[in-house]
């Protein structure tokens, strides 16, 4: 058991080193950009996983969160001459503000309200950054974003930024993994399973849901902040509802509620178009259909192919198993049928 764990840690360390070395060795900027874009998406999907994957509250505002995370910092750099490094704490602060400002009205109540406020929020953010041209640059957006300056160390080449992103992403993956596998992850999942029972344990469900959403917003804003540095420009047409849907798709594809699932989902959906160039304009259609089939037949996503318990909980494997009649505990009454 312990050996297995050590092997895992060794593999992850090797992966980490490999990812750091890759952009240094491979001088192809295009490859570096693809890796950096993947890492940004991993960060955002990890955040989305807290509120939607674990807690089961639909967040449709990822694009708006990213946009605010990116714009808030960059506008302060451009208008106030703030140091670029400070965009990261600004993004985190923005995440906290979004988390509470949207979470408080919608998550106090039972029901679907978070999805409604986030979807509206996202469109309003887009509307405002499109039309408030004096401040946000309108449809031309924020141009010529300066390189991130780490206390004198300028990340002025894509490979430098990518290496830094690998480190940030590793820290965030580790943090996300710890949270998911802690008392917090457990309680988030419990909220998805049964809210009344969580309340009966003396747990403040509304407060925890707001915490989960705030985590999602913070991760989303950090992702957005780096997205800005990566693209070197921002404009409102990038942050559409489709973008939010794409992140949900990544999460569903990889595996809901699981950190490795989120990482795999984000990586697969971001990188595969590079390999499947012939799909061109059909790409999202194909991926959409695959993921929808996943939702029906393999709801816990790609990762559940390797997890017996999850795999057989629902979907195609359950159907196959039921058909074989191998299911244990068949015929146990589900609720107080017998008196």
């Amino acid at each position, binding site marked *: 058991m312990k050996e297995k764990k050590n092997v895992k840690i060794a593999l992850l360390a090797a992966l980490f080193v490999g990812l750091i070395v890759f952009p240094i060795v491979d001088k192809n900027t295009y490859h570096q950009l693809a890796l950096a874009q993947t890492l940004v998406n991993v960060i955002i999907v990890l955040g989305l996983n807290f509120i939607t994957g674990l807690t089961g509250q639909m967040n449709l505002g990822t694009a708006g969160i990213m946009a605010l995370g990116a714009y808030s910092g960059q506008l302060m750099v451009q208008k106030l001459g703030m140091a670029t490094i400070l965009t990261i704490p600004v993004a985190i602060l923005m995440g906290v503000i979004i988390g509470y400002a949207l979470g408080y009205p919608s998550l106090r109540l039972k029901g679907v309200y978070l999805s409604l406020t986030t979807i509206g929020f996202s469109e309003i953010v887009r509307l405002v950054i499109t039309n408030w041209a004096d401040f946000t640059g309108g449809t031309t957006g924020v141009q010529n974003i300066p390189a991130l300056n780490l206390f004198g160390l300028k990340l002025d080449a894509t490979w430098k930024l990518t290496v830094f992103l690998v480190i940030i992403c590793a820290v965030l993956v580790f943090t996300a993994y710890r949270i998911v596998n802690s008392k917090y992850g457990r309680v988030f999942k419990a909220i998805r399973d049964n809210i009344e029972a969580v309340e009966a344990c003396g747990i403040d469900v509304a407060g925890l849901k707001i915490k989960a959403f705030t985590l999602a917003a913070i991760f989303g804003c950090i992702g957005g902040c780096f997205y800005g540095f990566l693209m070197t420009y921002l404009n409102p047409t990038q942050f559409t509802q489709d973008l939010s849907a794409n992140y949900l798709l990544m999460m569903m594809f990889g595996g809901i509620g699981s950190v490795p699932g989120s990482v795999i989902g984000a990586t697969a959906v971001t990188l595969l178009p590079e390999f499947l160039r012939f799909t061109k304009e059909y790409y999202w259609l194909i991926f959409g259909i695959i993921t929808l089939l996943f939702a029906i037949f393999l*709801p816990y996503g790609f990762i559940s192919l390797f997890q017996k318990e999850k795999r057989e909980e629902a979907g195609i494997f359950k159907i196959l198993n039921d058909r074989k009649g191998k299911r244990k505990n068949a015929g146990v009454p589900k609720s107080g049928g017998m008196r």
Partner: protein
Amino acid sequence: MSFAMIMQLIISGIALGFIYSMVSIEYTLIFNSTGLLNFSHDKLIMLGAYAFAGQFVLRMGCGYVVATIATVLSMFITGILIAKGIFNPLRNMASPIFAVIGTVIMGRIIKELCRIIWGATAFNIPGFMKGTFKFGSIVITRANTYIIIVAVLLVIALQLYFNHTKSGKAMHCVQQNKTAATLMGINVSQNINITIGISAVVCSIIGILVISLFSVSLTMTNMIGIKGFAAGVIGGFGYFPGCIVGGVLIGILENLSTLVIPSIYKDCVAFVLMIVFLLVQPKGILGHKK
């Protein structure tokens, strides 16, 4: 600001408001019968518009009446297929989150399909529902008149259907208690199929009506989709009279808001109202307990 102008703002507000009300009704139908919010609803409306304008009128050259009938029928079938393929299998999963994400992904698929089939550029039907009616000093566009008439007829038709036909009453039962409905011999799955079919029909009607307000494009329904949700929250979520009241209220208020704020921000009115209601009166105006 003359009286006539304010009246015109109010009347076009009412017309837009009825669009929001219909959007609200369309997703409430599905919400009540399955407990799921259909986040692809705006894409279904868009699909209706594309089918009518892109396919039947412009490509096949059908008359408006024939095209309307063809659109409604094909959308009904689409709705039933979606119900059979997606809603019913996903409805019984361990957590509703799978189904809800499923609907988002389905919306994404519909949009991609529209883009691939009809292209990404916006287009319009020349002369469709254009022109105005004049009542004294008040001018009302032909489109707004049609919208109000169709919306009222639709609401009456749905009322009649739910209260006076056997399958409509069965739907009422399914909405209230699925287990009891099953025990009463109602086929819940089939019932949900038909409900979603009807919802798709309402979507197609909305789609046809909004062609004259916005041109046919891939983002034409983004805003009405969201405002439909806001209408539900403001009027009373999951409750038909609430949908109508909420929708019309948003329509009027956002049109009147242009008197005090720049008109580009009028789209924010619905959202701000929704947040205010969530904070102060989460049950909505009609206070229906759901």
